[in-house]
């Protein structure tokens, strides 16, 4: 598979999850595991351009796919507009849900455009749980990021 623009190959057990492959084989530990029932979204990455829960995808199922993780967003140290918006709007506290939250946020903007409304943002974040922020600033960040991504 192709991960963050680099071609990767490796032998894995059939039962290995994509998130385990990313974290343990590739040491891309920015993608987190916060639950075991596909609810929390800390593990969200993009596969072939769309968000998926990497804890609910087998590594072998992503064979041949293009995978983007949180580590693949910043270019030459410059934050992706959505990352920057999370920083500017204090959209994170402990940082644990943040990678999944940012990956989902980008996916939301990709699908809904840069003038996505608050109700849609809140509804479409239902697969990402945050315990710290109360979501207020995450929603603000998604809007700001959407504008910046819209160009």
């Amino acid at each position, binding site marked *: 598979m192709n991960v963050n623009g680099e071609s990767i190959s490796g032998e894995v057990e059939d039962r290995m999850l994509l998130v385990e492959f990313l974290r343990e084989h590739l040491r891309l530990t920015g993608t987190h595991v916060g639950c075991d029932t596909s609810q929390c979204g800390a593990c969200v990455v993009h596969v072939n351009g769309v968000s*998926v829960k990497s804890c609910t995808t087998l590594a072998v199922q992503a064979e041949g796919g293009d995978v983007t993780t949180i580590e693949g967003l910043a270019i030459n140290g410059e934050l992706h507009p959505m990352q920057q918006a999370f920083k500017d709007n204090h959209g994170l506290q402990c940082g644990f849900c943040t990678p999944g939250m940012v990956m989902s946020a980008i996916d939301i903007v990709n699908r809904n455009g840069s003038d996505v409304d608050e109700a849609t943002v809140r509804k479409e974040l*239902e697969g990402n749980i945050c315990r710290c922020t109360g979501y207020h600033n995450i929603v603000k960040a998604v809007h700001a990021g959407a504008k910046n991504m819209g160009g």
Partner: protein
Amino acid sequence: MYNFSYQKVSSIADAVDAIQKAEDGKFVAGGQTMLPTMKHRLASPSDVIDLGGIDELKGISVDGDTVTIGAMTTHAEVAASSDVQGAIPALANLAGNIGDPAVRNRGTLGGSIANNDPAADYPAAVIGLGATVKTNKREISGDEFFTGMFETALEDDEVITAVLFPKADASAYMKFENPASRYAIVGVFVASSGGAVKVGVTGATACAHRGMRLEEALNGNFTADAVDGVEIPIEKMNSDIHASAEYRAHLVKVMTKRAVEACS
């Protein structure tokens, strides 16, 4: 997860061949229910046969009054399809409210109905629209497909290829979500075509079913008020920490009324 042997197949014939050879094989479609179940060690198939590589199972087409959706079409694809939005908007809406965006990008129509979770959304639409489930062996009517909790009419080596949804004059799906899992505590799909009303109910009982009493009341009087007098038998309702049988029975009526109102 227990270990298993994974195979990705590229044709229906290969899929059937693989499952017949496996000691205790399972097809995986999107895997959004199956993988969490396996992670909790509640399922332990010897072989997992991935249908994701079979191109003929994917895609959406509209032919006359029928919308055909390939079994491996994702919820996201159905929700975003202008064909489905145009022909049966309620179906696109339903698909767009299953799980969350990341789950919708993997989860599929075929996987959902083959699993037949009592709280899944699609079964309500299959029943409510009177859809036909097409497999590699036969065609099964929506009414006969869902046979019990997590049980369907499918044989072990039978693969769903597509579901044929007839267009309706008007239809709507109303879901009362479980606040934790976001599955349906009660979901009601109402469709009206040529004066005939069909009602598909999910979440309420062990298995999605037709709301015959509701249909009877709504045939000839397709208004929310018509639902008021219907008695929903409480004995058959599911009861759990999220909703008692009595509350579920009440919600069936409320959701039906709201669906009827949304149809007008």
